[in-house]
């Protein structure tokens, strides 16, 4: 007689062993090192750090290795590790106007203070597979260099602001909320929304931003500017009583400038959308700024058109890929008990319907 499946313990152990074997792949092929991943899979490492909300390229590279290249799984490993870390305090707000930019482009002005800096971008590459890369060992020739311009790189939005053409950004000294230390409560402040988006799934934000471009919560965005580079992080140490630099991190920042014809409460002017992502995450920073702008309809006195990107509760409840993948994938766990209850119900309802049909 068949007896219900037993032996969960042995099955789990065997599955883990098999997984480790699969992760390593063919042992005759040299093993990837964490440093190789960190240096040569940089954008994957950056994505894992951004969505994992933890700046540590080595750990992110390790997570990618352990996750067999599944980036959401790697983000999950980083998040689970991050939870266990003690909090020493908060840094000062970083000053992105003082960023040492590797890349800085504006789509709204041909030239501007600080200049256009293309940086290491895929933008104008031809997407032709480079079979030379398949042959290993070649080091690309060094890129030409020039001395860094001493010029300041002011924000484009600031230039528009001087003329009153863009909405004024009211300074806000409220301490930033921490989504990972208190439950999400709705309606959320813009700071909290941005925090959720900054660790949200790139693919989800990309699709939402795309939907606004196609008319679902239209935002008419121009890229005021997009900048990538290192910024200094400062923290105030209680023993000292003043802020000191504690390191540098790489950030991608996008400010979109959006057409706005005015509303009952606001005059015609440009409005802002903001995106900030840890590491190089251009696609995500752009997406984030469009979604941020779409979410601001209430504050700007616009109409809610029912577009998903305008819907704060919809966006914030579903942008986290670790929550999403967990809940989605949990349906593969056993549900015998509930299914049994449904079976009984459907059988009973069917029997009644059949009987009625027969009468």
């Amino acid at each position, binding site marked *: 007689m068949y007896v219900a499946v037993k032996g969960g313990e042995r099955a789990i152990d065997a599955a883990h062993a098999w997984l480790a074997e699969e992760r390593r792949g063919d042992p005759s092929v040299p093993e990837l090192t964490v440093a190789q991943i960190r240096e040569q899979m940089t954008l994957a490492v950056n994505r894992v750090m951004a969505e994992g909300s933890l700046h540590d390229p080595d750990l992110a590279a390790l997570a990618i290795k352990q996750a067999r290249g599944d980036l959401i799984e790697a983000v999950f490993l980083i998040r689970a590790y991050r939870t266990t870390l003690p909090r020493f305090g908060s840094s000062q707000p970083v000053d992105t106007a003082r960023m040492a930019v590797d890349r800085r482009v504006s789509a709204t002005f041909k030239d501007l203070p600080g200049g256009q800096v293309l940086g290491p971008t895929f933008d104008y590459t031809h997407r032709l597979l480079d079979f030379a890369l398949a042959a290993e060992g070649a080091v690309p020739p060094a890129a030409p260099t020039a001395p860094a311009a001493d010029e300041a790189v002011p924000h484009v939005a600031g230039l528009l602001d001087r003329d009153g053409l863009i909405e004024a950004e009211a300074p806000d000294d409220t301490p930033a909320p921490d989504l990972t230390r208190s439950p999400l409560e709705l309606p959320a402040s813009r700071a909290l929304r941005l925090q959720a988006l900054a660790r949200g799934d790139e693919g989800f934000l990309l699709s939402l931003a795309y939907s606004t471009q196609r008319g679902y919560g239209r935002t008419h965005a121009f890229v005021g500017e997009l900048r990538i580079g290192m910024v200094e992080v400062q923290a105030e140490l209680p023993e000292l009583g003043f802020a000191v630099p504690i390191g540098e991190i790489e950030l991608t920042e996008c400010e979109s400038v959006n057409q706005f014809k005015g509303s009952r409460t606001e005059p015609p002017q440009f409005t802002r959308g903001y995106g900030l992502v840890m590491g190089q995450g251009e696609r995500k920073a752009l997406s984030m700024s469009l979604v941020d702008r779409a979410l601001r309809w209430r504050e700007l006195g616009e109409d809610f058109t029912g577009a998903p990107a305008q819907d704060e509760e919809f966006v914030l409840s579903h942008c986290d890929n670790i929550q999403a*993948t967990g809940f989605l*994938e*949990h349906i593969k766990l056993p549900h*015998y008990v509930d299914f049994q209850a449904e079976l*009984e*119900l459907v059988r009973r309802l069917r029997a009644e319907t059949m009987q009625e049909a027969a009468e």
Partner: protein
Amino acid sequence: MTVQDYNFAYLDEQTKRMIRRALLKALAVPGYQVPFASREMPMPYGWGTGGVQVTAACLTPDDRLKVIDQGADDTTNAVSIRRFFQRTAGVETTQSTTGATVIQTRHRIPEAPLSEGQILVYQVPIPEPLRFLEPRETETRRMHELEEYGLMHVKLYEDIARHGEIATAYAYPVKVEDRYVMDPSPIPKFDNPKLADNPAIQLFGAGREARIYALPPYSRVVSLDFEDHPFTPSRAEHACALCGATDSYLDEVITDDRGSRMFSCSDTDFCASRQAGRPDGEGGA
């Protein structure tokens, strides 16, 4: 991972305090969903992160822990969670319902009656009983505030109008202490009567949704129904093929490709106790 690498029961003490505060509030307002700062756990959302956090906040070194999924101690996720606490808390574990001080469960309430001093921790996927009627949290919270449960009664009524009965077989909504409508987690409605007047503390943890709620011992819990369509718990009309029980909840197992089936208790400890001729709930190791 060893006990030394992490705090007792994985979570740091501050986090446990935060969860315990939420638990106390939940016990003080039975059936009310208390938001809590749910942490990211080393298992995925949907695998019982809410239950695991509640269990971690309740465990003491002297506890004896039982973990079940679908009523069984040997389902893979029950094994995984039990191991997690063996590694991070080093507590004794058991399969015996009566021998456990803390029981974490997914989708079932054990058949053997619980007693005072025991804690039953439920894993909850969607804590909001009104969620499938109203997707917005901002709306459902207001509905609870105003005790506005008309929508739920209309849904149940429509079921009766269409199917002749309330077509909810699991996660059947209950009203707690004549105040809050509560989702009892996806237990089969067969288990609903055990929620009421239970001597044990019943705690519900929803990790992804960041909510905790509770039933203090001996709470009044009523499954929603109508006078002319009273609530009826249901089970398969069979006896367990292994222990012969006619009053337990049964799993249906397909035994070949010609439609043969057998039914056996979903509560493995209950079934093993009966097969061994011992009192209910003392079957396991």
